[in-house]
Structure formats: C-alpha cells, structure tokens
C-alpha cells in the first residue's frame, strides 16, 4: 500500500510533467483556475452567513443588498469558473493530443520488431489503448481535483474551527477513517480491475468472432456457437464472481466511511445547536454551516473518490512508461553512409539465429552469397527456416551469431531508405489494406501515390489492370469492410494486389514468400512466364512450395532444419538425387504419370 501510494504520486507527477511539456500555457491556466475555484465554497458559506446575519440582527437594507449581490456574484462565479475550466480543458486536451499522439506513433515505428513477436511484450502493446494520452490526462485531472478538494476543505475547516473548536476537531477526527477506509476500498477495486483486464479482453475476442466472416462460416456450419457463447459466458461468470467478492468488501468498507460521515453530520448538528443556544455563534453562522453540511460531506466524498480514481488510473501510466521503455531498433546514421561499389550483393556469413526467449536455434551456421540480379529460390519443408532468413535479410531481426553483409557493408548499418531501395517484399501473410485500391498498390512506394501510370503498370504486371475500370471510383474505390461503400476482393485478387505493391517499388531485389499460393493455374503460369520481363534488371528471392518457381531460379537453396543442405540449379539438384529431387519427384508426379496409384 505504502509503495503503491508512492508509485501513484510519482505517476501523477510524471503525468503533470508530460502535460506541462506539451501545453505549458493551458496547464498553467487550468491549475490557476482550479486553485481559485476551490476557494469559492468557503467564500460562499461566509457570504451566506453575513447575509443572514444582516437580515436578522439589524434591518440594514444596504447591507442586505450588498451581501445578497455578493452571494449571487459568488454563485455566478462558481458556474462561470466551471465553464471556463471546461473550455480550457477542451483546448488543453486538443493541443496535448496533437503533440503527444505523434510521439506514441513514432515509438511504435521505432520499437524493435522482436517485441511484436514476443508474447509478453505483445501483451503490453495490446494494453496500450488507442489513446494512451487520455489516461495521462485523466490522472492529471484527478490529481488537480484532489488538490482543489483539499484547498476547499481547508477553507471550510477554517470556518468550522472559527465557529467551534470542538466542531473542527470532530470533523478532522471523522475525516481520517473515511480516507483510510475509502482508500482501502479503492485499492481493492483497482487490483480487481487489474486482474480482470485479460479476461475482459478474451471475452471481447470471443464475442467479436461472431462478426468475423472467416470464423462465422465455421461457427455456423459446425454449430459451434455454443462453445463460444458458453466460453464467453463462463468468463463473464468468472468476472462477475470476482467482482462480487471484491465489491462486497468495497461496500463494507465504504459503509464504514459513510458511517463516519454520518457521525460527523450528527455531531455537527448538535454542536452547532448548542453553540447557538449558548450564543457562541450567530444565527448566520448556524444557517450557513447547517446548509453547507451536505455539500461539505459531498466534497470529502468527492476527494476520496478522486483519490480512488487517481490510484486506479495512475497504474495505467505504468503501462505507458513500460511502453516508452521498450527497446528501439538501431537507427543507423543517415547521410554518412559508405557508398559501396556493388550495393546489391548479399552475403550471409556463418549466420545463426534463435528467436529471443527461445532455447533453440532456428538457423545454424548459414552462409551463402547472392549476386545482383540473381534469381534465387529457397525451398524446404514447413518450419525449415526459410522465412527466418527473409526476416534477417530485411533487418527485422539481427543474427545471434555471424554477420550479414550487403554490398560489403554490415547490414545493421543500413539505413531504412537504403534498405527500401534494395528490397521490396510480399510476405506469406501479406496484409489486405481496407483502404482505397490506390493506397493498396502505392504502399509499395508511397512516392508514387499519385502516379496513376506507375500504379497501372504494376497492376498490369500483377494481372489486375482491369480493377480500376470495374469501379466508378476507379483507383479511389474503397476495398474491404471499413467503409460502407467498400467492395471485397477475392483471395486471388488480394494476392495480386500485394504482388503489384511489391512490383511498384523499384527495388534491387523482390522478395517473395509464397507469392502464388492463392493464384489459379493459368494466372500462376502467366506469372512465371512474365517473370523475367517483370523483373527486368532486378533480382528475386523467392520462397515457394510450388517447385515450378524454383525451376526458373538460377540458384536454389534447399533448407532442412535451419541449415542449407543443398544448393545449385534445378538440373544440378535433380542429378544429385537429394532432398530437392525427392520433393520434385513428388510434386511433379501429379502431372507426369497418367494415373496415380494411391
């Protein structure tokens, strides 16, 4: 509890610092307004007291008028302050978001790629909500409302002590258990919500499967809805039971604090009545304090509530700090890069690799050289390490041992721009962008976003040049389900769009991981035929289970269990009679024998 409070305060200061850094002007205004408006409550009580007294004791019309006007002015001021405070907060939020969201997004761009494939880091990334800045803001607001409540309570305390010393003491004595109990309750609730987040996310996942069309066809056909509904309802039950247990304790604790508040109210009523009876206080004091009791009680409860919310939210700041502390990829210096004579020679020099957190190497001592404009194929069984080689080559990971040289330069020193000029890629799990057709293609080379000719050419090479003419919106047709006027493409069309994306970049090498998996035989064959023309003076590195594509390669690397076991051209490898020959034998048997024997 102790250290948590310290941590919470630290987080509060952190949020304050962060906000001040981005919007110092608005922050100052907001803090100022908060402090001033906190004084209104005690002032209002004081003014009311004087108004009543001037009415009761001496019928002084002038006094009545002035105190009455002052009271109205104070009330107006209260509402005016909250209005202005609201406006300032709106502007503060806007400007803070404008400054801070780009920073968050920049961080996402810089995080080491490995974090995205590591499940615990991925969990953290999932927890960074869409607007982490709103948590920072909320913590800031809560912190200020605590401060404002403290100021306002202090002012009221002053009036209480002035009325009766005993009353002041009673109020402080009853306030302490309230804070302790409510604080404890808030802490319990915070912890609960903390542990529940994963379950809640899981439940959300299960529920959204019902509108995931890939899942839905199976759910319907397999009549599996009960499994998912039961699972999600079991989670709900678990969540509710945990909530129930905790909330029961919370209610017990907060009942205790309500009792304390009740005792204070009772004591105050009797103390004030006695004081009035004895003539220690004026009627004005009596009236103003009795009417203020309810709101004073409200202020204290509000403070406690703000403390609870503050504790809960400030824990989330931790996520954000953890997020900012995630390792970033090395950012090679731009500009002073060495120009190499032959920029596009790729050399793997005794490269071994294991995924972070794993205990097994997925690549063992892999060495090979790829020359510019060469057409290379990697073949091998699922899980042999082909895709890992691509990830290393693209700089998503850094070798555990050994080095990769590109144009004689250590590939870790390669800048992003340089790498983009060297490689374009179509991954096995390529992304379908539910944006416009134009964007889908142009993402291969965003500089050509407006070059319809270039886009058209890439689409032609990929065999989807007819797409823009099919839609009224042409290149600007929305694809997918995000937009209500979006159209969906077939699997083959999406794959060709991904291909077009890769073609659009004028890179020295096109890297293709299973580029034809969703293409029909004719399209696949056409692609192979046109390949040389499309590649022109580019090289290609292809991973494919369709060995026809390997046949065209100048060099084939056969991988088994993280090692390159054979290399050579198609004919050489067939002659060798090894793993490649066996694969080829099996695949081509579908096409060579008249009738297969099963």
């Amino acid at each position, binding site marked *: 509890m102790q250290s948590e409070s310290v941590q919470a305060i630290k987080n509060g200061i952190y949020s304050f610092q962060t906000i001040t850094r981005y919007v110092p002007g608005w922050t100052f205004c907001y803090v100022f307004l908060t402090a001033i408006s906190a004084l209104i409550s005690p002032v209002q009580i004081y003014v009311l007291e004087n108004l009543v007294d001037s009415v009761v004791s001496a019928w002084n019309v002038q006094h009545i008028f002035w105190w009455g006007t002052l009271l109205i002015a104070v*009330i107006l001021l209260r509402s005016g302050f909250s209005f202005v405070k609201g406006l300032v907060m709106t502007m503060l939020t806007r400007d803070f978001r404008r400054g801070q*969201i780009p920073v968050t997004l920049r961080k996402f761009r810089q995080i080491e790629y490995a974090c995205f494939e590591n499940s*615990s880091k991925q969990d953290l990334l999932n927890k960074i909500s869409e607007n982490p800045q709103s948590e920072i803001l909320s913590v800031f607001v809560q912190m200020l409302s605590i401060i404002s409540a403290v100021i306002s309570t202090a002012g009221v305390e002053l009036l209480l002590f002035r009325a009766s010393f005993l009353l002041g003491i009673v109020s402080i004595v009853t306030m302490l258990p309230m804070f302790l109990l409510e604080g404890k309750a808030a802490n319990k609730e915070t912890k609960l919500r903390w542990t529940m987040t994963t379950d809640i996310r899981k439940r959300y*996942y299960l529920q959204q499967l019902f509108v995931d069309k890939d899942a839905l066809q199976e759910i319907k056909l397999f*009549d599996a809805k009960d499994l998912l509904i039961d699972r999600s309802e079991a989670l*709900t039950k678990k969540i509710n039971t945990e909530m129930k247990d905790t909330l029961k304790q919370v209610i017990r604790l907060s009942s205790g604090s309500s009792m304390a508040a*009740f005792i204070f109210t009772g004591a105050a009523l009797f103390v004030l009545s006695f004081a009035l009876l004895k003539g220690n206080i004026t009627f004005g004091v009596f*009236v103003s304090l009795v009417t203020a009791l309810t709101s004073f009680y409200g202020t204290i409860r509000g403070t406690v509530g703000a403390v609870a919310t503050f504790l809960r939210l400030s824990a989330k700041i931790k996520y954000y700090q953890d997020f900012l502390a995630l390792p970033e990829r090395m950012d090679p210096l731009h500009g002073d890069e060495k120009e190499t004579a032959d920029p596009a020679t790729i050399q793997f020099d005794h490269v071994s690799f294991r995924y972070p957190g794993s205990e097994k190497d997925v690549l063992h001592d892999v060495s090979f050289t790829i020359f510019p404009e060469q057409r290379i194929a990697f073949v091998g069984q699922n899980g042999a390490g082909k895709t890992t080689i691509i990830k290393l080559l693209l700089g998503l990971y850094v070798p555990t041992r050994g080095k990769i040289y590109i144009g004689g330069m250590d590939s870790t020193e390669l800048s992003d721009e340089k790498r983009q000029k060297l490689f374009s890629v179509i991954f096995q799990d390529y992304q379908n962008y539910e944006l416009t057709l134009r964007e889908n293609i142009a993402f291969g080379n965003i500089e050509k976003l407006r070059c319809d000719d270039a886009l058209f050419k890439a689409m032609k090479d990929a065999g989807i040049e007819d797409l823009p003419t099919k839609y009224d919106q042409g290149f600007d047709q929305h694809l997918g389900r995000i937009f209500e006027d979006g159209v969906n493409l077939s699997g083959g069309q999406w794959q060709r769009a991904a291909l077009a994306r890769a073609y659009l970049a004028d890179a020295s090498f096109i890297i293709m991981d299973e580029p034809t*998996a969703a293409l029909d035989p004719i399209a696949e064959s056409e692609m192979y035929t046109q390949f040389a023309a499309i590649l022109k003076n580019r090289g290609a590195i292809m991973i494919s289970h369709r060995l026809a594509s390997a046949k065209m390669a100048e060099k084939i690397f056969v991988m088994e269990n993280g090692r390159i076991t054979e290399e050579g051209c198609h004919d050489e490898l067939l002659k060798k009679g090894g793993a490649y020959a066996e694969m080829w034998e099996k695949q081509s048997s579908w096409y060579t024998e008249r009738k297969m024997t099963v």
Partner: protein
Amino acid sequence: MWKTILLSTKDLFSAMPVIVSVTIFLQMVTAGISVAMVSLTAKLIDSAGNISSDAKAVFVFAGVILCCRLVSLFCEKISYRINQIDAVPKFEIFHHRLSQYTVSLSLEAAEDPEISGMFWRAKDAVYQNRMGEVFFGVFGILPGLFQLVSIAIVLGAYHKVLVLLAGISVLPVLIVQIMQGKKGYRLYKSQTEKNRLCGYLWELLTSRNSVKEMRIMGFSGYLTDKYLEVQEEVNEENRRFAMKSSLQGFLCDFIKIAFYAVSIAVCVMLLRESKISVGAFGACLGAFTSMQGVLAGLLSGISGIKNTCNYANDYYDFFHLKKADTHTRKVNLSGSVLSTEDLSFRYPKADQNAVNRVNLAIKKGEIIAIVGENGSGKTTLSKLLLGLYTPTEGYVRMDGEDIQTLNHDYYKKFSLVAQRFGRYSISLRDNIAISDIRRREDTFLIQSAMDTAGIKNLGAQIGGINEELGIEFGGKELSGGQWQKVALARGVFRKGEILFLDEPTSALDPITEYDILSGFVGMVDQKTAFVVSHRIGICKIVDRILVMQNGKIVEDGTHEQLLRRSGVYAKMWDEQAKWYQE
C-alpha cells in the same frame, strides 16, 4: 421511442423482476426522504431562529434529520449493492441474445459492412447498458414527480410566485437538453465510419503484420498522417460540439441564478412584510434551490430518455435483420443426392451474379474437384451447397428437399476445411474440436485427426493439446503451414458425410502436400467430397471435375474426358503441368 421504452421495460421486468421492483421502491423512499429533508431543514432553521424560547424543538428536528439521513444512507447502500452486484449477471441476457441472433444471420449479411456496423452499435448499446438507462429513466420520472410536487407544496406555502419562478428558470435546460441530445446522437452516428477507420488505422500502425510491411516498404509516415488527419477531424467535431454544449449549459446556469436572485428579493420582501419568519427566510431559499434542482433533473431526465432510446434502438433494430435460420422443418436426410436447380447468387451490392444458373446433381460417394480461375465462383458455389449463403434464385436440394426450408440438422451432413479458416486464440484441442464440440473430450479422436492432417507431434511440441494458441493472449503462435494443418484436422475431426476442402494445401510444402493429397481418397473413405484447388494435379484422383468460369459450370467430367475435350480444363492442366515436365 414508445416502442423502445416498451421493449426495454418488458425485457428488464422479465430478466430481473425482483431487482427492478426493489430498485423502484428504493427510489421512491429516497425521493420521499429528500423531500422530508428539505422541509425538516427548513423547520430546523426556523426553530433555531427561536432557540432561546424553544430549544427542545431544535434538537428534536436535528434528531429526526439524522434518522432520515441514516435511512437514506441505508437505501443508497442497498441500491449500490443491487446495481453493482445483483443486477450485473442479469444483464447478460442482452449479450446472450445478441450473440445467438448474430450467429443465426445469413453469412452474406454478416459479410456486409453496414450490418457489421449495426452489430457494433448494438453491442455498444449493451455495453453501455442503454436498455437499463431507458427503463430507469422512465421509472425515475415517478419518484421525481413525487419529489417535485412535494417541494412545490413546501415552497408554495411561502409564496406561490416562488414556485412559478423556479419553474420558469429551468425551462431553458429542457430546450438545450433536447437539442443537444439530438445533435449528439447524430454526431455519434455520422462518425461511425470515421471512428471505424481510425480504429483500423491504429491497428495497422500497431500490429505485427502491417508493421512488418510498413517498415520495409516505408509507408508508415503516410499512414500516420492519415490517422492523425482523420482523428483530428473527429476530435475537432467533438470539440466544437462540446464547447457549444458547455456554452449553452453556462447560459442555462446564468438564467437559473438570475431567477435565484429574484427569489432572494422576493423572500426579503416577504420577510419585510412579516409574512415569513426569519428562520423561514433561509428555509425558503433552500427550498427554492431544491425545486430548481429537482425540476432540472426531472426535465433533463425526460429529455434524456429520448436520447437514450436512440441508442437502445440500435440494439432492438439489429433484431429486425432478415434471419437465415428461421426454418425448422425437420426431415430425415439420407444425403444420397445433392442437387441444384437454376442456382444463382449475387452478393449484396454486386452488379452481376457470382454463381449463375448452375444445375448439378451429385451422388453420394462421389469425389469432386472444382477448378477454375480466381473469381470464377468456386468458393461461392461451395458456400451455397453448404447452405451458408441463401440463393438469390433457384434451389439447392438434398434428397429433393429445398435446403432453405430445412432446420440446422442440414449442416450436420457436412464438414469443411475453409480457404480462409479461423485461427482461434483458444486451446489446440478446441481449435480442432470446434467442428464437433460434443466430442471435444475425445482426445484419441482429436489425436487421430491430427495424425491425418500431418501434425502428429504438434501437441507435444507446444506442450500439450490444451495449450492456448495465438499470440494475442500469450499463447503459442503457429506458422502458416501449421495453422492450415490445424484447419485440416478440424475438418477431418467432424464426422460429416459430405466433405468440403477449399484450397486445403495452399501453404504446405511439397512433401506434406503429397502425403495429404495422396491420402485424400483414403481419408474421405465412403464420403462425398468436394475439393476446390488450384493444384490441378489432384484432379487425376477424383471421380468428377467441375470447371467454373464466370459463375457457370462450363465443363463437367473425368480427367480423361476433359483432357480429350481440349477445353478450359485442358488448357489449365497444360499450363500447370508444363512446368513439371522435363
């Protein structure tokens, strides 16, 4: 609006009659107490004015006030407990109904972006507990009215003008509330698409697959700008709305306070004319503010109902969508003939048929390959035969019965390995047993399905078949090939008599593909099977090949027959086979 109120009321009463009644009762009690408090405080102050003559009265009133407060404290705690603990599980009925209904929607409906937008709004209505809000909003009027009338009586006892003043002073609140509610909902609805886009862009900017491509191709800057731009647009709209609303709120406050000032003046006059006592002066002002508060609360509550109804309507509207599974006719099917009659299908908003006048008859035990170019209608035809899509025209019949008129049992005839199969972030066991959940405990059968799909050792590799898959919740992530084999095992595990395999080996290496495809005939045993594949080699081992082009079946026959015809099939065969011939 009335319909929504009626529906919400009905739903809440049937879901939690006791809770609802107790809550309403507690609301009445609390309202009563708060009225009593106003009048008691007045009495207390009044008697305190004459404390020198009647000290006892002061302490009696103080005591009664404390008792009232204790009772209301008690009510508050019980309400809290009921709302936070007892009512929460009862509200699950809304989730439950939504899920059940969504599954019963036709697949083509679920694929429609508009309908998925409706689903999310409906879900939102449940998460925000809009139905409960409507109900308690409506039933909150009753205690509110009671409170209002009683305070008006208390205040009217001092002077009738005060009641009128308090009444008029909060009218602007009502007007502003109604206007803002309408505008707010319109804004919310108009932003659905933009919000969806923002969410999607954020996902692209932060999730693995897209981050990978973005970094290599270098378009993260573009997407970031786009995100910021759309987000800014939404934020600015919201900000302008919020600022306007708060200005209007401030004006309402101003009017309220102005009237309060007038009421002070009136009270001073009354005091001067000795119509009220000194104590009553303070009490009167207190009653005036209470009346303002209660009336404003009541009015905004009433105008809020309309607004809340709009949101709750999102939930009830969803249930007006055309359902697919409304038919309950139960027929004992032997599954001996699956046929189609002039079967056509057009996707919503498409301008041509994806499947066009297909006539087919499939006998039990036939193994059929469906081949054709991308977009020729193979997968659509499969989904029609499976009964997942509703034909635009024509029929799919099993044993001569129109399947659209049959109940769910029709699905039991089938198993499926989908082209775009689900990758569920649940356990490996459930990922496979999801195709037949009644047998999910049958580990032996699950293992044998895995053996058939070529993932004999996957269980051992990941630490047991009860391990969770999918990195989303920290489970084991599989490669593309492994996922495909899991989907294959899923299809095999289900004991359907008719098996559909849509591109079952697209991510598999040649050896595994060979093993699976050559084991295919044995795997399907006596079943009817359809396989959609671009690996045209498999056509040699099937009984019958259907060649599709532009939604039509253009060729139909065995491998030899079709090769002899030298048509579309022969061309496709040659195109693919030439790469494998020396």
